[in-house]
């Protein structure tokens, strides 16, 4: 009947674990699921990374294209993130245009890119007012088991670090761009933002890295983004129950620890990819 309890009364089932300061999958309240990273596996992309956070899997592929710089910023380029939740990743998503959750996630990623200054869009300018790079960062969820945002940010950051842009010169005679695909250079990554998501259960219990089921039962959700200097880039808490200042401080300190872990992981994987080549 234990399995029956789980399906019929999922909230009671989770509460019975949280009372003992643990979770149904055996984790402690502030414990992340195992995070694994694979960088550069998609050769058709200019940069790519696959992240697994427990069962949750997100792949990020970056494609660079050439465009005219924006009118409001002639010395800038574009970064266009897009989060896709295809029906493949969970039965809760339908085919068709992006749903509410995918739209919110895309906007969150765009905000983090802007506020954290992970890349300065000035770096993407090739010739002022004439030509710039557009980085299309497509984040595709392949297996949805909660905590999409954390996985997306790690995938994005790792893929950006993996991105190699071809060399472009503007011909003086024809003033047309000339691309050399053989000669490539990496992007300059200014900051390393990492997200840490929390769920609040029954208005009081705080858990980190929620699974899909925990997310659906929680009374509020919260995402904290910090960079390597411990600066707060973004704090996202869409509605739900309130949270005390102390608890929030707790979340931020947990996030800074997580940031260091993830940055170490990315550097380790990047290093192993480089030595392989």
């Amino acid at each position: 009947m234990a399995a029956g309890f789980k399906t019929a009364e999922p909230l009671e089932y989770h509460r019975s674990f949280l009372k003992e300061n643990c979770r149904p999958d055996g984790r402690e309240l502030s414990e992340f699921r195992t995070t694994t990273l694979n960088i550069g596996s998609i050769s058709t992309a200019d940069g790519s990374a696959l992240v697994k956070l427990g069962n949750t899997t997100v792949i990020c592929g970056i494609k660079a294209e050439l465009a005219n710089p924006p009118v409001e910023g002639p010395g800038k380029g574009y970064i266009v993130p897009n989060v896709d939740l295809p029906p493949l990743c969970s039965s809760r998503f339908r085919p068709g245009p992006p749903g509410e959750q995918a739209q919110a996630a895309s906007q969150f990623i765009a905000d983090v890119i802007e506020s954290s200054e992970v890349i300065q869009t000035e770096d993407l300018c090739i010739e002022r007012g004439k030509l710039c790079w557009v980085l299309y960062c497509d984040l595709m969820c392949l297996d949805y088991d909660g905590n999409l945002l954390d996985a997306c940010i790690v995938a994005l950051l790792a893929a950006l670090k993996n991105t190699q842009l071809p060399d472009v010169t503007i011909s003086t005679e024809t003033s047309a761009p000339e691309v050399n695909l053989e000669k490539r250079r990496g992007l300059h990554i200014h900051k390393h933002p990492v997200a840490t998501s929390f769920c609040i259960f029954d208005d009081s219990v705080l858990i980190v890295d929620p699974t899909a089921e925990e997310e659906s039962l929680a009374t509020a959700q919260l995402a904290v983004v910090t960079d390597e200097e411990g600066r707060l880039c973004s704090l996202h808490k869409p509605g739900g129950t309130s949270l005390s200042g102390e608890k929030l401080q707790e979340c931020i300190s947990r996030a800074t620890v997580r940031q260091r872990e993830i940055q170490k992981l990315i550097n380790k994987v990047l290093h192993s990819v480089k030595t392989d080549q």
Partner: protein
Amino acid sequence: MPTDTKRVRGPEASQSPSLFVSKPAAAPPSLGTRADGRRWGQVDVRPLFVRCGLVSQAKGSAYLEAGSTKLLCGVYGPKETERKDETDMKCGRLTTDMRFAPFSCPERGSWIQGSQDKDLSQMLHESLQPAVCLQKYPRSQIEVNVMVLENSGSVLAHAITCASLALADAGIEMYDLVLGCSIRQDGDSYVVDPSYTEQNSCSSVDSDNQGNLTVAFLPSLNQISGLQSDGEMTEETLTAGVRTCIEGCYKLYPVIQQALAKAVRRAAPPPSES
């Protein structure tokens, strides 16, 4: 063009850098060996890597890698049909959705599903349906979702194999597995399991026999469930091509059987004989 309010906005137009490459690409490979070392006119399929059960949320799933072609397939259901008017009291419905990740091809793809994706979904559906025992699932639907992560040629053929593997992993009753194989006919010779460049290359030799052929094959029942060809081929060339594809399918068969056996064993130990 209407603005897309559901996505982060980028520039109105952008071009792929490959359009501005100053030097033309390296000369096409000579006849005899192919760019990846395989041979022309031989049933030389790329080595296959397959694994079941990677998508935790799906009833069944399969990941397939052939050369650089990478596909992931998830199967959901049988569940209640979404639309009441499509409910069939005697027989289940099979739905297929095949999509390309925007970064999967050398040229960036659109976010919106194009007509190519829909055609491929339809062909995938036609190839799989004869193999599934749909009468066992009255008034329900079974969903097959394929995502192409990297397109390095022969995508439809591998999608068929991958989807049938995912269906078997999901425990959906089937008459047989479905395997896919494709060839590119180029004049008198052909390449099996063509790569992206081979599939789209145009031979300089002027000849009648130019085209692509994909065959979906039920290996145990020895039946063809799907056949798609484009280009122009004579009758003899086409029949010879179909035979070559079937031969290619038989080469994949043991790999698929082993992957399934591994998945079954991992899921549970053998039941007691009692």
